């Protein structure tokens, strides 16, 4: 097998087109901006005979040109993907081969978008997302990585090599390098994005890294929100001493530089003492408390129904809770292995706990601020007059009405959690050094960055695109939720 080029024979046609389209987008965008200062805006004039005339002028022309150029650029990019899938392996270069490996992701994305757009009128806020371009772009980026994580991680469809095993002779080799002896020995014929300094496949490591992020970031954010909601609602609703104490504690954690906190919590010495396990025991109780209070406050007046529901939900949650906190090799290992369905790889629990801990005070502050604002509303007063309990008012009156800002912040915070996970990896904390997560890979690649940038760049760009997607998604959601 020979070395792959970036775009192969497909590039002969598409590369010049891509260049032209990119330049056209740049020129058109610049022209639109400059003209918006100089030229009169597009105006619509009503005529006496009941018709309207649009005066487009140069501004309108530039806007149309920009639309066309962007469309052209997207078509060219689509051409790379379709060319890569249809042409025989190797002809479409590295880009084509990667597009082909990602075929299940493209399929899943297409199905998601087709279904969502078809039924968007029935899907509430989620459906409205597909009215905003920014929101759709963000959603596409996020779902791309979610599907890549799912198909690449547990299903094992995308990665070309084992992310941890090294192949001799491929150390620091450039993208598209052929694997010696492949495909006769059953290996994939190329390292698509080259080899890193331990001769592992950069592409496969990036794909496996996405699964780690997709698992941890949303779940950790959810746990942080549970803590934030369970403590923030009473702080905002009652005010007074509860608020003072909880706010002081939240500010205390926030005053710590995040990296110092990580160094204090995640080092092997601290893990040895079991502090992270104890923190997990405390932090992971909050979802249980939340679920109990949620059900209890609602069905308080129907004791039979309440007891049945509370018992059912709590048994399941408590089992999951015990399974999560009891891990072999840590100080807390109480659940027998036979009924312990959750076994985390070493280090994951510690990373998870520290990320939840860092995120909780911020979500506490947001929930507290919202509760403080919403408790003066009339529907709260009405519920209080009806004689509802405080927790009912907080969880069933205030919380549903705070959902808009909370959903938006949830998206942003997943992005921030992703950044935090990367930071942990960048300083080599928590996860084992050979772990394929993006932060650790960037950390491993940075020592030789000025000679071989290719091992560090793919995870960096992957992380950037995921966080960007989450930010755009949050922006789209905010825009659409404000329209109501």
């Amino acid at each position, binding site marked *: 097998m020979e070395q792959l080029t970036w775009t192969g024979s497909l590039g002969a046609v598409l590369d010049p087109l891509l260049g032209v389209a990119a330049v056209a987008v740049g020129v058109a965008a610049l022209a639109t901006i400059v003209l918006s200062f100089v030229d009169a805006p597009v105006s619509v004039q009503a005529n006496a005979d009941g018709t309207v005339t649009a005066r487009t002028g140069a501004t309108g022309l530039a806007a149309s040109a920009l639309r066309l150029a962007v469309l052209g650029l997207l078509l060219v990019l689509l051409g790379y993907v379709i060319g890569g899938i249809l042409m025989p392996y190797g002809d479409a270069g590295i880009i084509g081969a990667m597009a082909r490996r990602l075929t299940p992701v493209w399929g899943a994305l297409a199905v998601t978008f087709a279904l969502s757009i078809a039924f968007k009128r029935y899907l509430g806020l989620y459906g409205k997302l597909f009215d905003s371009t920014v929101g759709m772009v963000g959603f596409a980026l996020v779902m791309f990585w979610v599907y890549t994580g799912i198909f690449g991680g547990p299903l094992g469809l995308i990665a070309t090599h084992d992310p941890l095993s090294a192949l001799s002779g491929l150390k620091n080799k450039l993208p598209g390098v052929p694997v010696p002896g492949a495909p006769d020995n059953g290996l994939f014929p190329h390292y698509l994005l080259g080899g890193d300094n331990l001769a592992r496949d950069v592409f496969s490591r990036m794909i496996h890294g996405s699964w780690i992020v997709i698992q941890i970031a949303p779940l950790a954010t959810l746990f942080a929100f549970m803590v934030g909601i369970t403590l923030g609602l009473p702080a905002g609703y009652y005010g007074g001493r509860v608020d003072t104490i909880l706010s002081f504690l939240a500010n205390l954690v926030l005053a710590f530089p995040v*990296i110092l906190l990580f160094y204090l919590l995640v080092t092997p*010495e*601290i893990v040895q003492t079991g502090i992270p396990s104890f923190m997990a025991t405390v932090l992971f109780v909050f979802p249980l408390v939340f679920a109990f209070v949620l059900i209890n406050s609602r069905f308080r007046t129907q004791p039979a129904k309440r007891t049945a529901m509370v018992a059912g939900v709590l048994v399941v949650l408590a089992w999951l809770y015990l399974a999560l906190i009891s891990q072999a090799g840590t100080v807390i290992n109480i659940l027998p292995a036979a009924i312990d369905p959750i076994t985390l790889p070493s280090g994951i629990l510690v990373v998870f706990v520290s990320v939840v801990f860092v995120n909780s005070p911020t979500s506490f502050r947001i929930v507290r601020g919202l509760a403080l604002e919403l408790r003066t509303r009339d529907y709260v007063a009405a519920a209080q007059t009806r004689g509802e309990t405080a927790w009912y008012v907080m969880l069933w009156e205030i919380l549903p009405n705070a959902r808009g800002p909370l959903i938006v912040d949830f998206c942003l915070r997943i992005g921030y959690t992703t950044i935090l996970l990367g930071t942990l990896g960048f300083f080599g904390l928590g996860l084992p050094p050979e772990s394929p997560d993006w932060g650790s890979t960037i950390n491993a690649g940075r020592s030789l960055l000025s000679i071989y940038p290719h091992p560090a760049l793919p995870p960096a760009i992957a992380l950037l695109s995921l966080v960007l997607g989450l*930010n755009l998604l949050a922006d789209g959601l905010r825009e659409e939720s404000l329209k109501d």
Partner: protein
Amino acid sequence: MMSFLIRRLATMVLTAFCLTVVVFALTNLAPNLEKIAKSQAGARISDAEVTGWLEKNGYARPTLVRYGEWLGVLPGWTRTDEATGRETGRCILQGMEPADAPSFCGVLQGEWGQSTVFKRPVIEVVGRGLALTGKLMFWVMVVMVPGALITGVLAGMREGSKLDRTLSTASIVTTATPEYVSGVVFIAVFASSAVGLRWFNGSATSAMDQATFANFTLPVMTIALYGMGYIARMTRASMTEVMTAQYIRTARLKGVSFPNIVMKHALRNALIAPFTVIMLQFPWLLNGVVIVETLFNYKGFGWTLVEAAGNNDIELLLAVSVVSVFVVLVTQLISDIGYVYLNPRIRIS
């Protein structure tokens, strides 16, 4: 105003106190002390030798007592070596007669202790780091603040225009790029032999003595970019709000030209919110500083933090956390006071 200030200062002291207790407790856990002993007396020493070393250096006593000594409210430990009869102690520095040493030597007396990693007084290490980071931050501010304000004002003066869309998207991209990503991309593009531009240096070590355009641009840009997007978005939000205000409409109806409206009527009011945001950005910038100084090997405050934390250098770590807590809380205070000062509608009762 006075009672507000006093209350805030009291909170500050309480916060710093709680934080140092937490840091002290965590760094003095048994495995961490063992790590210090091994890093100071050799990695292969036996458990008995570890215990001996800890006893000899005053670590083998209750944490609370030693916290009191560090703070300077309890007298420092002294210990007479049975074999040589020499007296050693916390306050007895190298080459000092035991009789001359003060009995209290803690933070309250201005003694920050000795760094075990750098073998120098903590105050010297932190001071040097702060001076270097100060230089970095100065240039970051010089780039970031005007850049962010101009971007925000340009984007916010005509909401929904193409310029607004372009600049807003650019701001979102920069806020989504953590320092370790933008730093890596910058080094790969502008400093690697693979791309071949080689405009700047990939390391800022030489910038510690003499900062030049070539060795200081990348670290400054990396930090500035992350904060820039956020401040620009806040400025834009505040600018769009001001531009829809009644007095702007009045000015427009009077026939004031658009540049004049922006410069004379809108700008001052639009800059109140960004001021607060810039001040509140300091804690975040501190994070960026740690990452960038590690990535570019610039031995400032952030680098000192990583070294201290990585080697469990207790007294250095305590000093570093006190300084960073101080920075965070003081900037919060300045932001509150400045907000009131700039906005006459708000008065603190």
